[in-house]
């Protein structure tokens, strides 16, 4: 109950600033634009970016067609880093060195736009009344190859003497990459962990399994709150529930928080007014829609920085 109230509050708070900015943006936009803006990349970021694109086409520029696809971060970069490639590439991770090098080679100037924050959320079954709060170490031990945890009682002797069914998204997902690199610190994952391609599968598995525990992005939890409960993580100062206000770069949930991005082809932004206009629109409105799609907003200062960079492109 409380979390969703928080969400709403956060929403209305965030929506203030964009309105001002939209007004500002409208001044510069004297003519009706047309043409297309092509976006591809991460499926995690897709809901947010698709939402923005829709709003843009309905409210701002009817003549511009914004196309959003979700081939995945890496596949998206492949379409991004070619001649006449896509204008934006959504990414649930930062651009890799090889990819950046490829961009240099092709003479594509790439600008990283951080668009939102995602909190890695651990979910358990609604009937699970013991593991509602855990420490990061406890959580990690469940997923580690040499964590020596098989049953709940291995973590806490008072907990049931039943096997834990750990699950998560498979290696196709940026979420897995983040979990493996940042949370597990690149230690081997327990081979018993049930890795799934589809988030819907994970949601169902945990919703039906009293001993299930899974991790994924906050968005998938927000939308399934009636089926799942989130584990409050005790980073040392008492348990913290993932929520839009705790998932912030300096929030209480920061340790399990990662940024998501979209990468802009600056050359295109210079050549095509609609691309630049859209980029500015995205940054102006990003925090308004982040909450709705299960992401936490990024600091307003960062937004302004990027906007002034974009306005400088002409």
């Amino acid at each position, binding site marked *: 109950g409380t979390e969703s109230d928080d969400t709403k509050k956060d929403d209305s708070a965030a929506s203030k600033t964009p309105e001002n900015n939209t007004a500002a943006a409208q001044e510069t936009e004297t003519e009706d634009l047309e043409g297309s803006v092509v976006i591809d990349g991460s499926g995690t970021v897709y809901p947010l970016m698709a939402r923005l694109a829709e709003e843009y086409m309905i409210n701002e520029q009817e003549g511009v067609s914004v196309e959003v696809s979700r081939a995945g971060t*890496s596949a998206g970069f492949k379409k991004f880093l070619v001649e006449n490639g896509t204008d934006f590439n959504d990414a649930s991770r930062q651009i890799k060195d090889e990819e950046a090098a490829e961009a240099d080679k092709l003479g594509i100037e790439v600008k990283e736009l951080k668009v939102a924050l995602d909190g890695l959320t651990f979910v358990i079954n609604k009937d699970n009344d013991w593991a509602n709060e855990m420490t990061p170490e406890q959580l990690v031990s469940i997923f580690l190859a040499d964590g020596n945890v098989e049953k709940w009682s291995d973590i806490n002797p008072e907990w049931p003497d039943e096997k834990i069914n750990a699950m998560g998204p498979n290696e196709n997902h940026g979420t897995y990459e983040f979990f493996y690199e940042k949370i597990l610190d690149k230690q081997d994952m327990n*081979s018993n962990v*049930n890795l799934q391609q589809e988030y819907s599968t994970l949601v169902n598995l945990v919703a039906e399994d009293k001993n299930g525990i899974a991790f994924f992005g906050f968005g998938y939890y927000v939308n399934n709150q009636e089926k799942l409960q989130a584990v409050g993580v005790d980073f040392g100062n008492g348990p913290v529930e993932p929520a839009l206000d705790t998932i912030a770069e300096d929030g209480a949930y920061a340790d399990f928080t990662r940024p998501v991005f979209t990468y802009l082809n600056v050359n295109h932004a210079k050549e095509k007014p609609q691309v630049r206009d859209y980029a500015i629109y995205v940054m102006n409105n990003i925090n308004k829609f982040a909450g709705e799609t299960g992401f936490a907003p990024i600091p307003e200062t960062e937004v302004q920085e990027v906007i002034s960079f974009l306005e400088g492109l002409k």
Partner: protein
Amino acid sequence: MNSEFTKTKEVSIRSLIDENQRGNSLRRKTERLIPIGLMLLASLSILTTLGIIWTLLSETVEFFKRVPFLDFFTGTILKPLSQNPEFGVLPLLMGTVTSSLIAMVVAAPIGLMAAIYLSEYASLKVRKVVKPLLELLAGVPTIVYGFFAFTFVTPILRELIPSLQATNILSPGIVMGVMIIPMIASLSEDAMSSVPNAMREGAYGLGSTKLEVTRRVVIPAALSGIISSFVLGISRAIGETMIVTIASGSTKNFTFDITQSMQTMTAYIVEVTGGDAATGSTVYYSLYAVAMTLFVFTLIMNLLARSVSKKFREEY
């Protein structure tokens, strides 16, 4: 019309035809080109086969340069994307075989009995209604079956089998079986109705009941056709993709436990192509190796079905 007129006209018909025929040698020559053009069209199907084989083979060869042949076919662990990838295909084979077997357990008896009913028992009217309806069942897109298995059959099965997982191989297996029923029913029915009626009449004439005619005359005579319909059904189940993809998850379990999630070869292909597998990575090549295995599997099944049914056609 007077006969004088008729007479002259008659002559002119014949001479007109003869004249046209003389001028027709060009036409006859161009006619010779037609079969050549048509043959080119027909060869397109061979080209398709070659295309499939070439596509699969070239990348599969690359895969086996990286992963030893034996490891692939005897490995029980499949972790294609992990940091220490392992490429054992057995979990996928297990998933494929298990789901196909479940499907056949459902489809073979029901399909055969439905075929018997339609071919031997049903009145023309019933047949006229039931057959197109069964065709309709066969025409339902598999994605719909997948949706149905996942959102409806699994929850119902979980009421009966509490230990059943939300994604499991049992539910898609059963639904796949239902999907195959029309195919087996219609192919077996074809086989049974091509048993000459004379043979049935011979048996009826001796006072046999329908059941006896069916059991002792029709089924033995149609046996190879029926078996071939089963084999084709298996082949169809092996190649089915969307139902298992949606309803069985992507756990690469090497297990006999049908209440668990298992991945089939087809679902693996969907998983890998849907993901970020970079061209040139081993994962990318594994896609082709699995597809090749799948292709060979179904090819063997089809050839088997064909040779079985051929044998049967030779009988009369």
